[in-house]
């Protein structure tokens, strides 16, 4: 599987390479396979979008990169190569020294992700001091500098505020400042805009992009919003039930999706600028239980196109993640023999009638 990766457009040595990552949680009811054989690579300065519903394993997988499952009952296996170092082979202490310095993470809800009893400045400076031999004064100055960088007005005064005195957007800016203060090579943003107002969302995404360019960081952005992916990501990885179901460059994947789950995600994105003839079609059913996932393709119980696959394969056999017809770098996990035809004939007219007419 390692050889079957999309061309990220970067040089051949990827900054981050995840290979057959598995995160399993033993529970009294059985083994929960939150991530089951995930592989992807990410070039320096590039952005990967990981998309999927709640419980598809997005956050669990990225927490594994940060080593946040260490000290829990989770069983993590596979390889995570960051700049050539296998993070899973490191000791806890070695991993801790990389956490926040080489890989850092921004979380979904900045209000609960920041400690309510410490000032914003203290929390940011703490992230700096743990990896640098700096005194309090220097760390504070650095925190103010970072707050300024992420666009907090009057940073020298706001540095002494507590998180609850910040607005939601400012809190997320402060979280970004905390995440980038050590100039990490990889930044993982776990649904960074989900808890924010729509108007603030765009600002935060712009800020992330600006800073990514400035710091030359690689970014993994976890989201369920394909709009965010379209704006931010170079590559997209669609996850379902702990596995990658479609993986390719953003442009290719969003224009020629080949997996019915991706079609479902596309159909359920509301777009105020789209023509009013387009319909908002939710994916039927609920995400599967990871404790007892469906046989065969995990998506088959919710798939509208499973009858087009001969021999009831969807129910019996798990499809491999293989290159599609169009492009070797576009991987999909689906039995459909001619997904492009189905997409153009059945899905596209539903969700974007305007596009069909133009074509």
């Amino acid at each position, binding site marked *: 599987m390692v050889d079957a990766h999309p061309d990220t457009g970067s040089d051949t040595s990827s900054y981050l390479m995840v290979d057959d990552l598995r995160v399993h949680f033993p529970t009294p009811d059985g083994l929960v396979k939150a991530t089951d054989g995930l592989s992807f690579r990410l070039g320096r300065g590039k952005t990967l979008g990981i998309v999927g519903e709640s419980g598809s394993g997005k956050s669990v997988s990225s927490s594994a990169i*940060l080593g946040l499952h260490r000290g829990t009952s989770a069983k993590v296996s596979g390889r995570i190569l960051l700049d050539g170092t296998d993070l899973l082979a490191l000791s806890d202490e070695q991993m801790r020294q990389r956490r926040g310095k080489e890989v850092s993470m921004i*979380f979904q809800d900045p209000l*609960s*992700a*920041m400690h*309510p*009893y410490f000032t914003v400045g203290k929390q940011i400076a703490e*992230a700096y001091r743990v*990896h640098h031999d700096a005194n309090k004064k220097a760390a504070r100055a650095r925190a103010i500098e970072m707050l300024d960088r992420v666009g907090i007005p009057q940073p020298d005064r706001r540095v002494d505020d507590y998180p609850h005195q910040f607005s939601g957007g400012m809190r997320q800016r402060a979280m970004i400042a905390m995440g980038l203060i050590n100039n990490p090579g990889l930044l993982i943003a776990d649904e960074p805009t989900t808890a924010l107002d729509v108007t603030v969302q765009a600002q935060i995404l712009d800020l992330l992009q600006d800073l990514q360019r400035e710091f030359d960081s690689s970014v993994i952005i976890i989201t369920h919003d394909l709009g965010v992916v379209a704006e931010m990501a170079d590559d997209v990885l669609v996850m379902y039930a702990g596995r990658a179901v479609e993986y390719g460059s953003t442009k290719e994947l969003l224009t020629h999706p080949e997996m019915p789950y991706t079609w479902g995600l596309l159909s359920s994105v509301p777009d105020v600028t789209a023509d009013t003839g387009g319909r908002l079609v939710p994916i039927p059913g609920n995400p599967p239980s990871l404790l007892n996932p469906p046989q065969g393709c995990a998506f088959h119980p919710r798939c509208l196109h499973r009858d087009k696959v001969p021999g009831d394969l969807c129910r019996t056999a798990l499809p491999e993640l293989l290159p599609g017809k169009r492009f070797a770098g576009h991987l999909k996990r689906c039995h459909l023999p001619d997904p492009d035809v189905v997409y153009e004939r059945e899905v596209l007219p539903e969700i974007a009638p305007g596009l069909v007419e133009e074509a």
Partner: protein
Amino acid sequence: MFAYIVRRVIAGVILIVVMSIVTFALFFASPVDPAQFACGKNCSAAQKEVTADALGYNDNFMVQWAKFAKGVFVGRDFPDDPELKETAPQTIAHCPAPCLGYSTERTSTVNDLIERTLPVSASIALAAFVLWILGGVLFGVIAALKRGTIIDRGLVGLSLVFYALPTFFTGLLLYKFVAIQWGWVDIPRYTTIADGGLSGWGSSLLLPAITLAVFFMAGYVRMTRAYVLESLSEDYVRTARAKGLPPRTVTFKHALRAALTPIVTMAGLDFAGLLGGAIITESVFNYPGLGKLAVQANRDFDLPTLVGLVLLLAVFVIVANIIVDLLYAVIDPRVRLS
């Protein structure tokens, strides 16, 4: 902040006034005749009438309450009889402000009674408090950090056992075995600092303090464990780990800080309640504290003493409440007092 404190103090004073009225009302609602009690078993109707008159029990209870309230501010004479003051001033006990009453039963002002007994109760409460907070928080944190292990189960199980043991039972066990049978400590008898020095005072408090501390500690172990576990699963603890902070810093600076806030509240109120006397423990060890005094006053229908003790305890609890609320604002910046 200042306005908040003023408001809370005013509310507290009103509460104390209400408490005192309720105490008077409850006392007179009781079917027992206090004058009969004061007069004794072989008391004729005429003698009883004289006694009731002398003690003021014939007045309406609100009038009695008003006399009591006046005494708090200007002091009182017992009995309050101008004629007697002229003829036999030596029979009159003066109780200076703030006078909490005069106990004919104990021929002493309530203030003096409290002055004698409060140090005993306060000493026991303080010693027990130190033991139970240190032990409770320490074992609670250990149990939370070792969650699911045999250490955790052992601590939680033990605390359940100790929580179920009544203090009189623990106290008697300690008394019988530790003090009498094994002779590890002297037979417990309250010693003041003036008499026995710090070490004498401290060792005299050992058994009663352990008796109380074991019971409270059991609750605090479970409470601390729950709060620490809750706080360890908070998002900001994950953030702290994601920053690359060492596990020690994550646990003790980030997780524990938040977990201890509710414990401070509980501890403040429990301590205040205990200051008012540990009735059972003081009785078991026969320590002359507020709790033992309260039991005796209750048995003798000694209204002045009872009112004084009830009000004292009310003051402790109200003051502790205000202090705890102020402390909360210091600990948690989100709390703005207004």
